[in-house]
């Protein structure tokens, strides 16, 4: 797809270029923040799997430079106008905004005015990240035990693992991860690999997050995702699954938003003994069962009657052995946001901009170069069909 047709097909691709973001995924974090007020009272943040760095860029501009991004950054003015005209339930949009809120919107939160004091942001990836103002970038494997002291040292140059107290070892307010593997198409394997990436982020978060901290990570909503929700619930008071409007409806991608880190009593995180494989986590779950599958959620006040279902299915002894729970779903970014699935007409004189940063080189880059050098094919080998 050419740049120009992608501009029409993907409003956020165009907006990202216009607003100087490294990738369209910046809007996902901004819209998550708008809904969950993620950055409130936050000064120490760790961004995992950060390359090419669009989430770190959001952190840099919001926390360090003190810029503000409200709905106006992604509002489709024509849509807003048409919504008013067509009466797409304004009261409803307002009701929406009340739903999961625990604090006022960032747009009128005084805490967000201007640059914050003592902000420390560390971005970690396996691939190098272009520098960003005020951000410490590390190239490291987040699953490696050595990464924890590396990270703590980056947050606090005086850090010494042997002398620091417990509190100093858990200084982080927010851990975010937008990492995803290249999918193979073998769905259960892709879901497994993504869950391992999520656990890698969680394991590190459990080592550095302070009680009350938040954790946000990408998740694939596929088979057995309810097992994952239940496992995350062991560590956080509230767990939501959020879909920003800038994330395509057709994509299985969503974000897990975990609020108020409350490690179970006696739990000690360690990358030497990571969660995600083995039986440690299922055992913890079994002990905590009740608290892990319940969450007080304000009922959505949108006039739709929430139903208690009558389950008439016969119990299947072989199924549902594991503890499952479905985190409440929250759509982020209000209705006037550009729609990532819609096609937009652009003015005739629209000039398509170049991306702020070219995408990272794929592993098959050399293969493409070689093929091109050989005149379009690798060599002269007959292809026969099935």
């Amino acid at each position: 797809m050419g740049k120009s047709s992608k501009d029409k097909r993907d409003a956020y691709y165009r907006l990202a270029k216009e607003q100087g973001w490294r990738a369209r995924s910046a809007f996902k974090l901004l819209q998550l923040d708008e809904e969950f007020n993620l950055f409130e009272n936050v000064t120490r943040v760790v961004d995992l799997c950060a390359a090419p760095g669009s989430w770190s860029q959001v952190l840099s501009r919001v926390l360090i430079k003190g810029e503000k991004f409200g709905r106006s950054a992604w509002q489709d003015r024509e849509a807003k106008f048409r919504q008013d005209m067509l009466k797409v339930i304004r009261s409803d949009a307002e009701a929406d905004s009340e739903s999961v809120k625990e604090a006022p919107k960032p747009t009128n939160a005084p805490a967000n005015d201007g640059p914050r004091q003592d902000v420390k942001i560390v971005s970690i990836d396996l691939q190098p990240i272009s520098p960003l103002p005020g951000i410490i970038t590390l190239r490291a494997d987040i699953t490696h035990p050595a990464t924890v002291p590396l990270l703590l040292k980056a947050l606090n140059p005086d850090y010494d693992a042997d002398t620091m107290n417990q509190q100093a070892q858990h200084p982080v307010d927010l851990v975010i991860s937008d990492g995803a593997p290249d999918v193979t198409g073998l769905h259960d394997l892709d879901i497994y690999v993504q869950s391992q990436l999520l656990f890698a982020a969680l394991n590190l978060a459990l080592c550095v997050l302070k009680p009350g901290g938040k954790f946000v990570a990408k998740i694939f909503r596929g088979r057995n995702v309810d097992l994952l929700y239940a496992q995350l619930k062991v560590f956080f008071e509230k767990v939501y699954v959020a879909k920003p409007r800038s994330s395509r409806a057709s994509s299985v991608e969503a974000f897990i938003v975990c609020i108020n880190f409350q490690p179970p009593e006696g739990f000690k995180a360690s990358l030497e003994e990571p969660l995600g494989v083995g039986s440690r986590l299922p055992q913890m779950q079994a002990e905590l069962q009740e608290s892990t599958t319940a969450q007080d959620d304000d009922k959505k006040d949108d006039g739709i009657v929430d139903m208690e279902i009558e389950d008439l299915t016969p119990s299947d002894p072989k199924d549902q052995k594991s503890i499952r729970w479905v985190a409440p779903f929250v759509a982020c970014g209000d209705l006037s946001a550009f729609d990532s699935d819609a096609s937009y007409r652009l003015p005739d004189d629209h000039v398509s901009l170049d991306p702020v940063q070219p995408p990272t080189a794929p592993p098959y880059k050399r293969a493409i170069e070689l093929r091109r050098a050989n005149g379009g094919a690798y060599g002269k080998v007959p292809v026969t069909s099935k």
Partner: protein
Amino acid sequence: MSSSLIMAQQKLEHNFALSPVTALAFQDIGESTYLFVGEDAWLKIYHVTTSRLLGKVRAFYSQPIHGIHVSESKAGLANGEAGILVWGGQSITVLPPSSIRDLVRGVAPPEPTEFKAPDWIYDGILFPAGDPKGALVTAHNELIPFSVSPDGHGLTFGTLTSPSRPILYSANLCLLGPDTILVAGGTVFGEIIVWKYHFGSSRPSQWEVLYVFTGHEGSVFGVSISPEFEIAPGINVRLLGSCSDDRTIRIWDVTDRQLTIPAGQEIDSRLLTEARETGFGDNSEAKEENKNDSSRCLAVAMGHLSRIWHVKFGRSSHAQMGPVEVYSFGEDTTRQRWELTFDLKKWQEGLSPTSGPVGNLRNCSVNSCHNGKNIWSVAISTKGDQEPLIATGGADGRVAISGVQGSADSTKYRHLDFTVPLEKVLQQLEDNGEPHNTTVDEPKNKKGVKYAFQKYSFLSDDLLMATATSGRIFLAAVTDSLSWEEVLVSDTVVEDLRSYMVMKTPVKDTVILGGATGKVYLYRRGQEIMELAHFPGKISDIILLQDPSQISVENQQPWSVIITVLGLDHATILNFDPSSMKSTIDTRKIILPEHCIITAAAFLNSILIVGSRIGALTIHTLTRDSSDLVPLSSRRDPKGKDAITAICPLPGSSTSFLAACRDGRYRIYTLNASSVPFLNLQHEISPPLGMIEGAWFSSPSSRSSSPELILHGFKGKNFVVWNESSQQTIASIECGGAHRPFSCVSPPEDPNQLRLAFTKASRMRFYSQPAPFLQTLKEGGHGREIRAIAASSRYIATAAEDTNIRIWESTPSSSSSPSLKCLAIIEKHSAGIQAMKWFGEDYLLTSAGSEEFYIWRISRLDSSYDALAVVCEAVWDDGTRDGDLRIVDFDVRPWTTTAEEEEKILIAMVLSNSEVRTYTYSPETNEFQLLAKGMYTGACPTKARHLIIPDSEEVHVLTGYTDGHLAIWRTAAGAAGGKEAELVHEPIKVHQSSVKALDLVMLSGEATNNNSRWLVATGGDDNALGFLDLSYDPAEKSYTVQGRYRVASAHAAAVTGLCAVAGGGKEGEVEVVTVSNDQRVKLWKGGSAKGEEEFKVKLLANKYSSVADAGDVEKIVDEGEGKKKVMVGGVGMEVWDLIE
């Protein structure tokens, strides 16, 4: 469908599934070879030579099988010691030999016990004897031994062992000795770790890292350890093959040469304490002692167009330094054969980083094995020097196999492949003292160009005629070789046929030849050549009127051909009667339109159909005024000027025929013999051939089977023979491209046998095969995700991500295993299909990206050839200037108005720019008429449904959007030409985000007024199931929302498909089936039961679905059986019975 459905409490029962084949393994038992096939959670066993499914068993509750290990010890099996190990994800089970015997006998074995390993498993192995029973390797490079209890129902895992825990994409285990395993793990970051694990009671378990290979620039998706090969006297090697995201295959030397490796535990501690840098191209696992390991890379090669999933070793030649066969299998559905050879000199100098690779991988063949994308599973069985048995399993659910040794007596044609230069033929005649024409013995013509082969024609399946540009005529008798003789003719004939001739075989053992001087000659086997006729000009072509498939059958009936002569305004029918040996010129001249060059012809009774060089088809008949065959009417369907290459009447039909064309399509027409006869196009399709050169129907020996359509032609540089009925390539032979002389023959009853002769690089290639190289062990379906399903009362249509549409029919369920038969495959869309609907049984409508909207006419053929005729009747062309919108959804209904008599199709469509449009389509004029347009907020629509208001000529459309709302649009009665559709009710919120699925039923029974009432069920991206109780008051012309209800976490993931299966009418409730990305299929009942006020939702069924990434669910009513079913489509497809 929406008005009244019968209500009764129902449940779901699994009926049929077609899923990706994700595991394969061969096993020999006695004289027979069997193939284990892992398809979703099912383990199936097939008999290889007969392709018969013998038995199946569900290995796991809700986990696809990813691997099968068959114990290599045959003695073990016989002694009841071994069995097979099956794994997938974290699940494993061990099937005892008794269960395998049950499966082979078709008896259901005892249900296997499923165990869960602590992590995802990439490979597993069973030990020949003793305890532990076997071992597994996990996605974190850990080895787990396991033991099985004596009764087989208990399984215990031993201690996990690992030198380091990077996350892997592939692993392979190889038993080196009684207590040693070699482990190879390919990491996400492009490295390969090779380590050894010792077990056994005598010594404590321990490990040692042998090598860490770096070099791959992307994730390593496949690793495979070879057996030991002797590549030269005294040189034994063990190789490791790897394949990667970087599109390369690499071969590494992992031969154990008793090098002293430092004890493993030390490496362990260092690895874990040092801070590591990680990333592609950088050493993460590799430490100082591993820095030279990468010089053990023997060869690197590229061949696949996309990612490579597997690499495997085949045979090794006993010749010095190779070659060793290597096979690779990729996302591009190809399997590629490579030959690995070694440079002995470099080898003996030893491996060093500077010497360069000592091995070379040569790409020998590329075979596309599956539809769509991905080969997910592979099995190879080698037996000495025999062609190895290779099976591949695809995302399409198909199992393709090569190397099956057929029983010798069932085939006539042996495998032969010769390349023959003309000089060799002449030499052979000379050497054998065969009589030959000595007057034309110079090897070159006057211009100094060497004589070469000119034309080929099979006289029967064991006799080939080949002519030379010198004018000489040769015959080759086919046995295990070709034995040549020359047809002796006079010098004048040689002169006449030199440099120009046409040659055809009308019946067995007969050839008719035409030359530049207008003479036509006849040759009959064993007889001398004779002159049949003399025309006043160069013979431009000889057109056969007989079925060309019959040339291998004895026939003494009279036959006819059409002779066309350059510059003549007519063509001539030449008749020949073998009993009298007389030829006659038919009194009926074929009168040709100006500039018409005939390329194919056939009689339908007394009507002659003529195909031309520019693709026109003309009907010729005798008329009252003329004794000649005069052209009456003509049509031309190919877009360019491509020749009609064959016209074949359909078997058992006197009115329908097939015309093959060089534009790559074939078309089926029906002759409408009215006063002015004309042709109806009934079917038009592009099989995977670039240029069709010929077509014929097979004559099955068994009367119960239907004739199959066989096409041949050129595709790229290959000559391809294609079975359109089974959708399989019979042969694909590299020939250098189109436009070359060729001739081919097959037994009429067995199109899989083939003999072919053609010219390549001025030499003749002769090829003969007993069976296709690749055969289908198990039929498949779509190779990409199914996005839409539509069912008529007779057919089911499925449309997939790869733009293909398939039309299926349930096969009679007299057989124990229910299944679906694919009747047609339609490839025309260029963008992803978004929605599909039937209108009655005769029309299928499809919409896609790039503003594609097609109307297909579907009909049955009047023939014993059992196929469905499909033709694209209309293409919607009222799109935007850029033509880049998606037509996301649409709905159809019959439409008649008081003003018009014709029943039209009323179409409501929604486009990705937030627009809704209404059209009528006239099946008579094939025209669309725009009624009205409406624009929503800018949000993308997802669903559109008609709301039918009784006795109203207004059009009401319910639409769903990505913003979670529904809207209702009204097109006023009599609207036309793009009037604005009006929003009738303010948008109704039903979900928090996208409305992904929607269905509705109409409620009745409120006799108090004329209100219409619907129960609308919706599935959302927000995991919720919604119910909307909606009513319309025709007096007030207004809608009222009676209630909105939500089941918040109906599924664990987005609800992507929903259909109503019962309810509506007088019932106040509706039953719906929902599908989701969480791979559950659920049956719900929602509504207010009769006489009750309260709205209730009940969950009636909740089952694991084999379909990942489900895109649609559709109700199917099988009228024959009176059964109700639903079909789920996504990655594969699945049918569930609705049982009361």
